């Protein structure tokens, strides 16, 4: 049995859920960021599978944009984490605690 679009969509949904759960449960900012990347790549997988299934290229073009944007986001995000680490000597989100209601 060759994989169909449903298999890919299921896999993508599983990966997306794993990413979401990771973001909500992990405490290290870098690991959280990796989980976010996992979510974005799960979406990319959906886009490519659907693009092939539908026979149009919009989805694949979208994936290029998502990858480019994710790279830019990583650059800014890691820079923010470095400045945070310089001041606090930690990158755990439990230490992001100055601001509270």
């Amino acid at each position: 049995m060759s994989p169909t679009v449903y298999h890919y969509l299921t896999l993508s949904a599983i990966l997306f859920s794993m990413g979401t759960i990771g973001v909500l449960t992990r405490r290290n900012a870098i690991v959280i960021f990796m989980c976010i990347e996992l979510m974005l790549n799960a979406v990319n997988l959906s886009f490519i599978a659907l693009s092939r299934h539908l026979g149009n290229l919009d989805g694949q073009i979208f994936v290029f944009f998502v990858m480019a944007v994710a790279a830019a986001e990583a650059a800014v995000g890691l820079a923010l984490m470095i400045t945070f680490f310089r001041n606090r000597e930690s990158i755990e989100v439990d230490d992001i605690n100055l601001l509270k209601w």
Partner: protein
Amino acid sequence: MENLAQIAMQDVNFGAIMPSLVLVCFGMALLLVTVFSPRGKTTHVAYLSILALVVTGIVSLATWTPAGSLVGNWQEGFGGSVRLDNFATFFNIVFLIAAGLTILMSDDYLKREEYPIGEYYPLILFTTAGAMWMASGTDLMTIFLGLEVLSISLYVLAGFFRRQERSNEAGLKYFLLGAFSTGFLLYGIALIYGVTGTTKVALIGEILANNPSLLTNTMTLAGMGLMSIGFLFKIAAAPFHMWTPDVYQGAPTPITAFMSAGPKAAAFAAFLRVFVIGLAGLQDQWTSLLWILAVLTMIVGNVVAIYQTNLKRMLAYSSIAHAGYALVGMVAANAIGLSGILFYMLAYTFMNLGAFAILVLAGKKGEDNLTLDGFAGFGFKRPFLGVAMSIFLLSLMGIPPTAGFTAKFYIFAGAVEAGYIWLAIIGVLNSAVSLYYYLRVMVYMYFRDPAEDYGWVKMHAGAVLSIVVAIIGVFYLGIIPGAVMEFAKLAIF
């Protein structure tokens, strides 16, 4: 080779992105100007970025189609991915006003906080350009790109004071939660693309209208839900508002002001275009979803604001509440409600940026004094700023004859006309609750003995100018709202 060039240039119409193009070119030129400027000198960059905004404003107005004109001035380009119509132009002007007032109040603030870094201004210009793509994007791809250009610049701006832990935290929090919400938005887009086979907003609307069976498809509904999470996060609606108070309190004050007006309006623009045009077939579903969320947002914003003693944080919660009022207009989704949202965004830009401009002036270095106690007797010691602050607070409450009143009036009139009388009543009751925490600031300003003489408050020309412009805007929109409301009515789809 010639053929390739022809294919690449097909359907390109630079007129459709002209405002953001001008802005981005100015932004990149200003980055170079900054590099070649002496350290610590940023005033000229501020002036040049104001010039950029004025030029962009003139360029934007060229695409406005006045009432009764037979030929539309709107521009469409890039294979129908960008459409600079009245809707986009109205929002562009809102973004430009927000950016302009922000830049005016920034220069002396940056010097006082000892971060005179010129890159600040180009970043604001890039944010504004991203906001313009969101408002004029008619393809989910363009909207996504605009959202990211806007967000990435804002992450940097929120964490701009890099040796200040509060600002670090704000930047990092905004980044992590913003990227998280982008994931949801994208997944929603992927699902909608899977159902309809296109990412063009208008085409999605057509396909869904022609195939009613798609409307009950789980994938369509899940796509709609996930996309609304992405947008609701950006407009800071409950329960996706958790980041707002922290980020607003930690970010530099002018940036907080900008975030509460410009990017929020941009998110509303994209939200409206995608949902009202693209997902028109699902209106029953998203209306009932937004009904609940609008009520929740208003209540959470207003009730939690009562407990705040830090004014930046209080205004953050108030901005959550105001997003709730604007959502009421979207639930109504009729002509008055939708044009009411456009009007509301403009009115909110004036009143909120004005209030923040006073916080910018009133703060000491480090801004630990921006609490209720820190404003004791402020109104007597600083009469002009006290009166101005009172005007903005009255406008935020929605007291006539200010912009806040007319804006709320249009929104609630739209809700009543569409039959959502209870929603309008809840909105009005919430406004009454909000009187408490806005009036409390005025009580502190005028009925408490001043503990200090507020000698550190310097009336910087830029910030004062932005306060004066905001006061004029608040009264103009409050006393003669008709003209602008006509523009807003022309601007909706």
